[in-house]
């Protein structure tokens, strides 16, 4: 009788112990995952993917890492040069302010479009949005983690 009660006690405590062992292993895995994510240096704030580029420069599919301020235009002094006759010399700028991305039209001739609607001055954009500059279509994406 006493042995039976003792055995049940041991089993009960063992069950709780394994529950906590499981939790400990899971939490350790989570912390390791977070640490490795934090250890990776964040070089880029976001990336710009060229979806379509009829002029061929830059080629469709190419990817640009973005700084806090990235200028786009036909002039060679821009961070991203779009060699397209519909693009103004200094066409638009992508800026990262606070915790959000903005696109700013710098008084271009043919305008800047986000998901098909024209940008008037400064407009906030989100990851996954498509920006149209001249004939080129570019998509803002999250930095690779």
């Amino acid at each position, binding site marked *: 009788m006493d042995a039976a009660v003792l055995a049940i006690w041991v089993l009960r405590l063992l069950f709780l112990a394994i529950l906590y062992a*499981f939790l400990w292993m899971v939490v350790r895995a*989570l912390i390791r995952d977070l640490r490795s994510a934090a250890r990776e240096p964040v070089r880029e704030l976001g990336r710009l993917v060229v979806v379509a580029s009829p002029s061929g420069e830059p080629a469709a599919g190419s990817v640009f890492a973005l700084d806090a301020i990235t200028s786009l235009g036909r002039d060679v002094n821009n961070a991203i040069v779009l060699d397209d006759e519909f693009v103004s010399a200094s066409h638009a700028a992508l800026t990262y302010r606070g915790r959000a991305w903005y696109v700013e039209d710098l008084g271009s001739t043919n305008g800047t479009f986000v998901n098909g609607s024209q940008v008037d001055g400064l407009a906030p954009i989100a990851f996954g949005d498509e920006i149209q500059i001249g004939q080129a279509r570019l998509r803002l*994406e999250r930095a690779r983690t």
Partner: protein
Amino acid sequence: MTAAASGQRAVGREARRFRITPRVRGRELGLLSLVAIGLFIGSLSLGATERLKAAQLDGDPASVNLLGPADPAFIVVYLGALFAVHLALVIAGRRTDQILLPTVGMLGGIGLLLMERLPQDLAGRLGGLASTQLVWLVIGLAIIAGLAIAVRNDVWLRRYKYTWAAVGVGLLLMTFLFGRDVNGARLSLTIGPFSGQPSELLKVILVVFLAGYLSENRRLLVEESTRIGPLRLPPLPYLAPMVAMWTIALGIVIVQRDLGAALLFFAVFLLLLYVSTARVGYVVLGLGAFVVGAAALYFLFGHVRTRIDIWLDPFADPNGAGYQVVQALHAFARGGLIGTGLGGGLPTIAGRPPIPALHTDFPFAALGEELGLVGILAILGLYLVLVERGLRIASAAQDEFRAILAAGLSLVIGVQAFIIAGGNLKLIPLTGITLPFVSYGGSSLLANAVIVGLLIALSERTRDPLPPPRRLGRIRRMLDRGAA
């Protein structure tokens, strides 16, 4: 011979075309082994306790052989299903999350042990309680595997968000009109041989719709044009969905008398608004609307007032209205620090468990009695792990839609667990909602399985390009025409 060889080569080509390369999931396997050991020990503990009880009733406790699990078939089938899902995920070879499945497996297994221990006729006209629960658990695991393997593209979710919303509202209206009343709440809907609780599925549909809506209109919601005192609000038309959501929540309370679902929907809605806009103003405004609505409901509707009154003082009528809550509090008290052990809780009163609706609404109280404070803290920890994983998947997602979807899905599980655990503990008014993966009930298990399956699918670290956003508009069509 050659035909066979060429056939094999063709199969190899097929496999390459679909890029199926098995990938070892070591962490998942390790955690699942621990789940298997834990559930086996739990089953042994349950079996020994029940055998000792039976022997004491017979008056011959000395001669009994205590060793052996309670009912080996249940635990073997369940663990077999868990490892089968693991094997399927290994063969599919996607780089997906390895922690969600073992965590859900642990919760489901604890729920199964609890169902084995309760009177088996609680399930009603169906078979035994535990065997029905086991069938639903296995179907749920199959859904998790299916979604985690098959969902590679989310276009079908993001494109048709208004269709999803219409499906959800349709389900809700059908429940309003044709639903069957159970315990004063109109929850279940019977179509032909199937009956289920649409509000369980509705919570998944709601998150999908909100993710689509918020990711598309985030820009407009973040812009501010209205100011009320210190609050900065977006253009007023964009508050319309918030008002609609508030109305739907009120409608659910008034027509369906389902306080839990209303609370869940509104809480998830506010959390997602905050996640997608990072604006405290919305949360303040939403909480204000909640307080106004709750106060109005309290004064207008008897069933809401009863719930609040029971919460404030269950001992005013301990054998009537407050019976469930009082019994739950006694159960927690009996459990103490380490509990009475699985199967060692208070025996049934006249063939019923002491708390009415224990298997659906009060599994947390039952676990509190049998595993004690130590045990339920671990179970709350498991829910926290699920939420952390979901938010981590959201923060690593490639775009707004996936991020909001992952955050919303995991918050649905977390908020549900909070509402029912808080209700059982008399921290908040009790509302009839299920404890995810533990409570008895097919609809709830399947809906939560869909959530976990989608989360695992969303966690893939993909290199595939994203689908294009929806409103590309005139310019692109003009360009396409020009190119043609």
